[in-house]
């Protein structure tokens, strides 16, 4: 390559002339869009909800009144505490069991062939049908509720983790091998961090399934917690009151979801950089 050719490759270093003043690009933040969307839905519900017979439907202001009454009587908080205890225990166990199980199944050809089929099958298991059986085994108390939450939440976590492990590039594993890392070290130092986005997606999916499982458990075992409020209100055709726990659970699940997202950005800060998405 000639020198002249090399010269043409040097970047032009002339000073910018009359560069227009830097304009900050202002985009509406995502939370603002979300707030507007939620506000619009609540408003529309309020406007059109009044026309519906209060047995068949309700509207936000009536639900707010019912919420305040339930809160004042102390019923809502005690029911919430009761429900959350079972939910959190089942959910935490699902994460603690699901992630390692998914990692191991994804790494081992034999375990994948031997256990994978049960996991895939169990994910689609109609758990409601099995609740009476679980009650026979464990009674009507707290244990059976946590167990139902666990069974609903664990499989999406296992499956997502497992899929994530399979998506880890082979060459990253070979980096570990080339430095004589043991299988366990490769699992902990390479496979686990590489799988975090999948694991977090599974943990988020499990929030929704866990909440549904908790309400099912409260319907079909000893009637208690938020599920009890729903059933009792529904049986007395108090629709506004019935909506209170439903909405509380939706808000709670959404909050838990964004908390998981927050944790993900804390433990895997490189991930949002890699995908180039701002998660504001």
């Amino acid at each position, binding site marked *: 390559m000639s020198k002249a050719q090399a010269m043409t490759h040097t970047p032009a270093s002339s000073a910018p002339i009359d560069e227009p003043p830097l304009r900050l690009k202002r985009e509406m933040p995502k939370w603002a869009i979300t707030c507007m969307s939620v506000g619009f839905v609540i408003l529309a519900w309020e406007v059109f909800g009044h026309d519906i017979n209060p047995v068949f439907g309700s509207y936000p202001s009536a639900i707010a009144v019912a919420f305040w009454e339930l809160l004042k009587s102390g019923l809502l908080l005690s029911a919430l505490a009761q429900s959350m205890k079972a939910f959190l225990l089942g959910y935490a166990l699902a994460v603690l069991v699901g992630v390692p199980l998914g990692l191991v199944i994804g790494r081992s050809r034999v375990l994948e062939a031997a256990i994978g089929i049960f996991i895939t099958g169990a994910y689609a298991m109609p758990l409601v049908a099995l609740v009476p059986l679980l009650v026979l085994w464990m009674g009507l108390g707290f244990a059976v509720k946590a167990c139902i939450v666990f069974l609903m939440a664990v499989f999406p976590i296992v499956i997502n983790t497992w899929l994530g492990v399979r998506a880890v590039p082979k060459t990253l594993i070979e980096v570990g*091998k*080339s*430095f*004589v890392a043991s299988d366990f*070290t490769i699992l902990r130092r390479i496979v686990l*961090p*590489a799988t975090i986005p999948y694991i977090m997606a599974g943990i988020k999916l499990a929030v929704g399934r866990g909440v549904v499982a908790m309400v099912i458990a409260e319907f079909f075992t000893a009637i208690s917690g938020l599920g009890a409020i729903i059933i009792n209100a529904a049986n007395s055709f108090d629709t506004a009151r019935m909506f209170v726990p439903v909405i509380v659970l939706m808000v709670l699940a959404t909050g838990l979801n964004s908390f998981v997202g927050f944790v993900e950005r804390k433990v895997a800060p490189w991930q949002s*950089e890699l995908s180039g998405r701002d998660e504001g």
Partner: protein
Amino acid sequence: MIEPISGQVSMTDVSKSFTLKIDGKLQNVQALKSINFDVKQSEIVTLIGPSGCGKTTALRILMGLETATRGLVTVGGKVVNGCGYDRGLVFQHAELLPWLTAAQNVMFGLEMKGMRGAELKDTAMRYLELVGLQDAANRRPYQLSGGMKQRVGIARALAIDPQVLLMDEPFGALDAQTRESLQGELLEIQARTKKTIIFVTHDLDEAVLLADRIIVMRAGSVQEIIEVPLPRPRGDLGALRGTALFAESRYRVWKALHADQAEAVH
């Protein structure tokens, strides 16, 4: 008994076959057919050949990532059986761990080797300095350019102080300018560390510029081993490209690579 010399590599009668499923039938594909070559201490040898000629397979067997179906591989007089700290591998696309900083990536190999504490940090920084990246120590891979990533890859492999550096087309994905500067840097690093280097490439110029000897491979065999009569140190690689000696060496390798086509005319 002859004392084995650190950094010596030999492949004796090495064959490798894979079982592949082609058109629904299991078939044995012979990737390497009875390969023989020796590499001296502190020598730079490039493996060149068209894709599918087995050069990468040979390197992976040397590294211990694949096992030979037949034959003997030794490094520093010891038989290769799996990966070891006597060999350091530089990957085609660097393959840095995206969640670790440049320094932590270099430390990774050292930690695997059992190094801890202040020594670990100091060693990693020393090798980052060797590749000119001391100021980028805390950047993560996505904040590094392609050339910088590959420098970290080289530092990571060198940090464990292997006898032999194995490089699998490490500059193949880089732009021409970056590739040229890294070739020069690699030669400087080699002059300082005296490591034996086995370098896989499909770039004719690169093979000649870097190597003491070039092993031309074709269809799983060593076709020819060509000595490169260029002086060491190589000095300015740009100027070297203009010399008659370079052109002559390059032509010899080119001819060897195209020998099969000459035969095919018949």
